[in-house]
């Protein structure tokens, strides 16, 4: 695209072009439109959210300032009032089960939603504020000033006839594969080890059946995160409830998946057959199968966030947080997108959309949860995807539980210390290594 010459005369078509109408793009366009800027939101799918899937929960606090009382109208499936972390071996499960009724009342905490519904709703807020939404249009490259390969970004080329669009700033919210951030030279290298692929089935079940299986009522729902369910492949699983469907899925490290024997849907079939999971998900029709790549490594894989005439937000900037007990993405997308929109609006107002003029984006991110959480938890994805957490810890935890709760009369009860020592030895974990990873975890989460 470097040789494309751009509109050299007259004003650009827009103040800003936002590429991708997911949560990051919609939030960016919303903030730009509210600041009175002329903004175009370009989406390659036929409607916002049509290309998007995720592992289940939208955390709404980030919406409070953007859209007060958002919960009165957001297209939510269920409010998550029960969340579980489940640790599996082939035949056993140990589960941390947390309930909180406060999460089922305004202002709520997390919600399950269908992304096509949620993303369309959020993008409509940008449109209501004055953004121009153009769907069914794929951006195929960047336009550079005077057609110079490393010139400032001055717009995008689309696959529409005469489809060049010019602007003072482009915000790349084009998802995990972000060809725009790569074309802009903001990604130094792409390492497959930083990525996972998520696969998911959405299974129809009657609402009452879901209420009964998951132990919830009304519009309350459940989110279950699962460790130890992906065989030799680093990853995890999830089950969560919508109103009248249940979603079950896996997240799988790409290099290990590619080297292994089993395909994603075969691994998913094993999870669905597990004695702790089967009673929750069995029997219904699969309404939709879906797959999406996830930027798993967080802070350590982030691209440069700012270039001349361009900002990167959402999954395109690896803003997805995969930190073990916290698995979040939509909120980070909205947070980074809104910050990009505000920084871009300010830069346009000051008539300086160079990298220096856009630097406000970074300071906004640094002073919010988006980069604060990512920076603090930068080691978490590595810890969670490591051999100890993935392969050994689930066996030790379930082994200890088995030894503690299997009554061995007439033998006396074992001591906890002896049980832990025995299980660690059986699974080849030395105290030294356990302490080392324990300290790493304490530094990250403590």
């Amino acid at each position: 695209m470097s040789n494309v010459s751009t509109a050299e005369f007259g004003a650009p078509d827009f103040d800003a072009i936002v590429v991708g109408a997911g949560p990051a793009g919609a939030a960016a366009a919303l903030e730009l439109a509210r600041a009175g800027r002329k903004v175009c939101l370009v989406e390659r799918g036929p409607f916002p959210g049509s290309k998007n899937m995720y592992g289940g929960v939208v955390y709404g606090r980030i919406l409070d300032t953007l859209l007060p009382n958002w919960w009165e109208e957001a297209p939510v499936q269920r409010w998550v009032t029960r969340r579980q972390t489940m640790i599996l071996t082939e035949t056993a499960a140990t589960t941390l089960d947390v309930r909180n009724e406060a999460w089922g009342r305004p202002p709520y905490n997390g919600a399950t939603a269908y992304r096509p519904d949620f993303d369309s709703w959020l993008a409509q807020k940008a449109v209501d504020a004055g953004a121009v939404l153009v769907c069914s249009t794929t951006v195929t490259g960047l336009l550079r000033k005077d057609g110079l390969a490393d010139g400032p970004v001055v717009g995008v080329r689309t696959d529409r006839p005469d489809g060049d669009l010019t602007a003072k700033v482009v915000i790349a919210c084009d998802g995990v594969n972000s060809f725009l951030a790569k074309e802009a030279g903001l990604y130094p290298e792409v390492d497959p080890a930083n990525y996972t692929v998520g696969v998911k089935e959405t299974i129809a079940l009657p609402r009452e059946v879901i209420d009964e299986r998951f132990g919830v009522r009304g519009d309350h729902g459940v989110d279950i995160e699962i460790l130890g369910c992906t065989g030799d492949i680093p990853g995890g699983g999830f089950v969560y409830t919508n109103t009248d469907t249940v979603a079950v899925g896996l997240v799988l490290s790409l290099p290990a998946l590619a080297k292994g024997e089993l395909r994603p849907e075969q691994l998913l079939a094993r999870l669905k057959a597990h004695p702790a999971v089967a009673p929750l998900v069995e029997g219904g029709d699969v309404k939709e199968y879906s797959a999406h790549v996830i930027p798993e490594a967080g802070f350590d894989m982030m691209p440069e966030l700012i270039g001349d005439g361009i900002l990167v937000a959402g999954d395109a900037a690896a803003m997805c947080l995969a930190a073990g007990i916290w698995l979040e993405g939509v909120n980070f997308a909205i947070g980074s997108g809104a910050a990009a929109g505000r920084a871009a609006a300010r830069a346009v107002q000051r008539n300086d959309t160079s990298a220096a003029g856009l630097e406000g984006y970074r300071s906004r991110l640094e002073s919010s949860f988006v980069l604060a959480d990512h920076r603090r938890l930068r080691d978490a994805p590595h810890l969670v995807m490591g051999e100890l957490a993935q392969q050994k810890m689930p066996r030790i935890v379930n082994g200890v539980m088995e030894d503690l709760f299997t009554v061995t009369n007439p033998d006396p009860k074992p001591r906890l210390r002896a049980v832990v020592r025995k299980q660690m030895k059986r699974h080849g974990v030395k105290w030294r290594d356990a302490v080392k990873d324990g300290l790493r975890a304490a530094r990250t989460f403590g």
Partner: protein
Amino acid sequence: MAEPTHYPELSFESRMDSVEFRIAEQAHIVVDDRICADCSTRGCVVACPANLFVPTAAGGILFNYEQCFECGTCYLVCNEEGAISWSYPEGGHGVVFHRS
């Protein structure tokens, strides 16, 4: 883990039939299977969630773009420079999720 007993697992075809694809006329992914012929790893074959990469008897790879999730797994796991040319489908085409 135990294989499922009470509820037989969905066939791959029915699994993919649950997904809407608005198929573009032009392929958005092109596989140069002369390069694949020299590849011994072939991570794409096992990793592609849509099972779009099929080894042929002749030692190449048969690829079909039509039921692609546009996830990017194939090019990320590909070891062979230039084997997979990957872009997004024409606007409005490709996978369309409704309940994901």
